[in-house]
């Protein structure tokens, strides 16, 4: 039986029906012809096979690969293993958490995005057995496969922060955009309450790999903007605590952000990791690499959890055994083909991959077609033909109405999709992309069309 996501109420009235009408109308001249051109995409060649492909996870990566394989393979059995009924547009969480979008814009039904004809096992993978070519679900069901796509996403390791309680996100000045769509909404409520009076704000960044590593930066820029809008910025302080020696892994972007924060009077404390939080008394404890602990009071704090691979992956033979990705339990894939380095019938897609930098929807957008083609190649008895360059992107919100559109690859080289886009130029266009155009792009990716 199809289930509907729980209805949630918007706290932000700005996305009016008038705007929807006006913007929707702009697509009118083109939409009709598009329907015809898009439908022709189904005419592509398919590969006949009786292979059983299991996809662990039904986030953007799982859905994108499922849709592509369902179209590209004739006769294959495809099984998706994931319990969640609701699909969240996670790139929209920062918009919800800063009062730009109502929360219902990030809530969709998973089943609406799945291809027809796939088996959907509404359980979670508890164990991976790549030697026996099977996964075991949390109810003990063993599902054998010929090919496996691991698309489980990340585990948000809030437990590493002593005293943290995700159930209190939105209360006592504590925000955390990552946890869920309701947490994003609650984070906006906390920010909205804080900005009315202002005070001391602490923004945090852990030392682990992050999905959407721009989100902590966006929250910081937007908090500054929200305070200025109501005139409480002058009486407030915003301090950014990074557990690393930088705030972003791409040096040019890191320098750009630090330069802007200096102008906005947002000091950055490097090598300062959030270790503990006392939610009742609003005190946070930061620890240096040398183990020195410093306690700070706050009126508002944005908690960014450390991230790692889910236990099912981490405790299996699938993660990196050594090197920088081993500690997080990230999947050991070849960074170009995204095929597992030791289990050739296993591919990885999305945030779970132990590859540099890219844990974003934009990474999935560019890599899902490659992984689908490489898997089809392997099923057809060929070597993988596609190579991924690590493309990812981040529309970095600077304030309400303006953003940077940053695109880069594995090596941190800026790679704008269109040559006329200057990644360091703040712009309305980048804002419009984030505000209005990226969710449609995301849906097209999930449906396996781009």
């Amino acid at each position, binding site marked *: 039986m199809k289930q509907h996501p729980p209805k949630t109420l918007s706290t932000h009235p700005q996305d009016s029906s008038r705007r929807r009408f006006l913007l929707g109308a702009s*697509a009118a001249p083109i939409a009709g012809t598009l329907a015809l051109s898009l439908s022709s995409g189904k005419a592509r060649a398919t590969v006949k096979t009786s292979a059983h492909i299991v996809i662990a996870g039904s986030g953007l990566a799982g859905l994108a690969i499922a849709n592509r394989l369902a179209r590209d393979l004739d006769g294959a059995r495809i099984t998706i293993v994931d319990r969640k009924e609701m699909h969240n547009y996670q790139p929209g969480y920062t918009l919800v958490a800063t009062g730009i979008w109502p929360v219902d814009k990030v809530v969709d039904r998973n089943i609406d995005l799945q291809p027809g004809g796939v088996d959907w096992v509404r359980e979670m993978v508890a164990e991976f057995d790549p030697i026996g070519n099977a996964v075991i679900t949390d109810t003990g069901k063993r599902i054998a496969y010929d090919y496996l796509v691991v698309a489980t996403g990340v585990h948000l390791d809030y437990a590493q922060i002593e005293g943290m309680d995700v159930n209190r996100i939105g209360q006592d000045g504590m925000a955390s955009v990552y946890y869920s769509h309701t947490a994003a909404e609650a984070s906006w409520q906390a920010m909205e309450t804080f900005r009315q009076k202002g005070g001391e704000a602490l923004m945090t960044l852990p030392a682990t790999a992050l999905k959407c590593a721009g989100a902590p930066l966006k929250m910081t820029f937007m908090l500054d903007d929200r305070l200025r809008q109501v005139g409480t910025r002058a009486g407030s302080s915003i301090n950014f605590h990074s557990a690393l020696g930088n705030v972003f892994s791409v040096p040019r972007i890191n320098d750009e952000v630090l330069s802007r924060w200096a102008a906005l009077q947002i000091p950055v404390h490097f090598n300062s990791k959030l270790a503990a939080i006392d939610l009742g008394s609003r005190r946070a404890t930061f620890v240096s690499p040398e183990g020195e602990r410093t306690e700070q009071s706050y009126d508002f704090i944005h908690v960014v959890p450390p991230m790692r691979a889910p236990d099912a992956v981490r405790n299996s033979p699938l993660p990196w055994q050594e090197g920088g990705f081993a500690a997080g339990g990230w999947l050991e894939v070849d960074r170009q083909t995204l095929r597992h380095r030791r289990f050739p019938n296993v591919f990885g897609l999305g945030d779970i991959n132990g590859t540099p930098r890219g844990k974003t929807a934009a990474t999935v957008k560019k890599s899902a077609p490659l992984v689908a083609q490489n898997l089809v190649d392997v099923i057809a008895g060929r070597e993988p033909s596609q190579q991924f360059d690590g493309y990812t992107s981040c529309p970095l919100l600077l304030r309400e109405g303006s953003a940077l559109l940053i695109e880069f690859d594995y090596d941190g080289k800026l790679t704008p999709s269109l040559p006329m886009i200057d990644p360091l130029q703040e712009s309305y266009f980048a804002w*419009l992309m984030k505000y209005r155009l990226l969710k449609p*792009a995301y*849906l097209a990716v999930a449906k396996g069309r781009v």
Partner: protein
Amino acid sequence: MYEIWLALNILFELGLMYLPTLILLGAVWAALMAVAIVRGQAAWCAARRPAIVIGIVVTGVMILLTPSLTLSSLGELKYWVDWANLAAIAGGFGALAAALTLPLAATLKRAS
């Protein structure tokens, strides 16, 4: 080219999001065209000028309004890519207005 395919898909998904609006607009346009054609002797040539004028006016208005309708402002348009995209969006609204005006003006010109 991938970016063109991506842009087309974005427009397609936007179209799906606003499908009721698009259907309504299509129905209004079809009705206006039907009236103009069925009543006969529609002044299509004479209708071009008001359609173009309305289209230009709506384009201009939308250039002014679109940034604020998307929670931004004209002051945030920092370089030519911003202006090019704004012009394209506003031009889309202008073309739509012109398309709706054409059959209406053709009918009214005939009636007068």
